[in-house]
């Protein structure tokens, strides 16, 4: 569904114009209907990778396709929804106007747009705020609005950058339920997160990014934490946290030791 093929990206930092490689020779492929997590320390290149999938940033080398279409073609995004890190929207519109605007951009017909917008406002817990200007929205409401903007086109591929951040525990659970419902519907979901517990519950596979390289892909998720605790038998699958420390943290320690 999403295919990232030997992608590299350098950024030039402003002073001295020194080049820094942020993503190097990255390759991975997402199967239709799977939920894949990009994990890695701060600055590992998760956001950059997602932005390259969306064609917001152009890779220096390599190629990316979505549903077989080159990511540089806008049609590759015709069935895609993207939630950026800490989404932000025009403060002068109301939530309802904004959701409809994104629906129009995605090419959703007027009637479907209206109906879906209403449903999303309800299911994402934005009712009562939909006719208020966005500048009065809290961080968590902004995140929910971000979700509404993703789901308005009923996309088959979802790219979500830290979808749980900025939410209170209830909000986190609500969004997790929304994600699980999307998964149930057979959507292909790529997400990044620092909340490993959520990843264990939602995702089918996870990839560890270390300094822009895919260090390891975890093919089988460990059982979610609550079940694991009940289990007396020794764990056959290590927890993501242990793997994270193993792959991500130890690599950094090696670097520091050097």
């Amino acid at each position, binding site marked *: 569904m999403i295919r990232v093929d030997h992608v590299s990206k350098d*950024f030039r930092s402003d002073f001295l114009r020194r080049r820094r490689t942020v993503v190097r020779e990255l390759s991975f492929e997402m199967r239709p209907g799977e939920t894949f997590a990009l994990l890695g320390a701060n600055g590992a290149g998760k956001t950059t990778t997602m*932005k390259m999938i*969306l*064609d*917001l*940033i*152009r890779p220096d080398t390599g190629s990316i396709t979505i*549903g077989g279409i080159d990511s540089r073609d*806008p*049609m*590759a*995004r*015709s*069935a*895609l*929804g*993207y*939630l*950026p890190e*800490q*989404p*932000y*929207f*025009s403060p*002068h*519109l109301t939530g309802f*106007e904004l959701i409809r*605007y*994104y629906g*129009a*951009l*995605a*090419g*959703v*017909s007027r009637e479907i747009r209206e109906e879906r917008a209403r449903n999303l406002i309800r299911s994402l817990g934005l009712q009562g705020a939909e006719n208020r200007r966005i500048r009065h929205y809290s961080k968590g409401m902004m995140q929910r609005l*971000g979700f509404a*903007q993703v789901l308005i*086109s*009923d*996309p*088959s591929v979802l*790219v979500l950058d830290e979808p749980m951040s900025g939410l209170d525990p209830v909000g986190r659970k609500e969004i997790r339920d929304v994600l699980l419902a999307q998964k149930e519907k057979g959507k292909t979901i790529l997400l990044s997160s620092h909340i490993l517990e959520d990843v264990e519950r939602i995702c089918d596979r996870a990839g560890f990014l270390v300094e822009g390289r895919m260090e390891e892909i975890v093919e089988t998720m460990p059982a979610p934490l609550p079940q694991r605790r009940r289990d007396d038998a020794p764990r056959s699958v290590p927890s993501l946290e242990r793997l994270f420390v193993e792959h991500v943290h130890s690599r950094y320690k090696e670097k520091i030791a050097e």
Partner: protein
Amino acid sequence: MSSNSYASRGSRAFHVAAHTLLETIRDRVFGVSILFSAMLLGAALVLSPLAAGEQDKIIMDLGLAGISVIGLFLALFIGASLVFREVERRSIYTVLSKPIARDEYILGKYCGSVLTIVLNVLMMSVLYVLLVSLHLETFHMGLLSAIYLIALELAVIAAFSLFFSVVSSPFMGAFFTLALFVAGHLARDILHFAELVPAESGRMILKGITYMLPNLEYFNVKGMAVYGKPIPPDLLLFATSYGALYIVGVLLLTMLVFRRKDLQ
């Protein structure tokens, strides 16, 4: 891949334009510009009893200049902040994550800003025409031609303003646009001045830059209009094609730059 019916290219640019218009008219700046024009009108009303003969020409001229300057102020602000602000606020990420090409986005932003400016000019013009026809009783069609050319000039400036917004920051963008406005009106004087530059290379560079800039005096018929002289149709036709050429050229350049931009 999905059940959505895909809107045509034009319609996506249209939605961006409509959204831009809605966003900017709700911005404080739009309200301020309307307030300014109302104040200008008020001042004209206060001054007009003193006006006799030549003086109502002065008021007519000041009114046109007011429309132009307030429009410029709006064009500067909207243009400079238009794209840059969306990048800064990161709202551009979600917009461009929809199946919209970057060119369509630029086209939509430009049309939205021109719509806002035209709306502003229209509102001021209604006040102006009311003042001139009811109070001074000196209205004639030449004034409408002058207003049309002011709007056209503002549309040219908005294109440059959008370009600067894509390649630099809002502050620098506004600065460059203002510089362009001044230089565009003084193009002829700059050419005269260039002749005085002793160094051959300096003269060539200065002339080269001046020839690239639009000569904004082509859009200025205020003097003729105020004195009731008819505005020749070929002049209007020429200015229209001249402006359209600049708009298309600058928009294409903006698209070319924006296509390659990494939105970090």
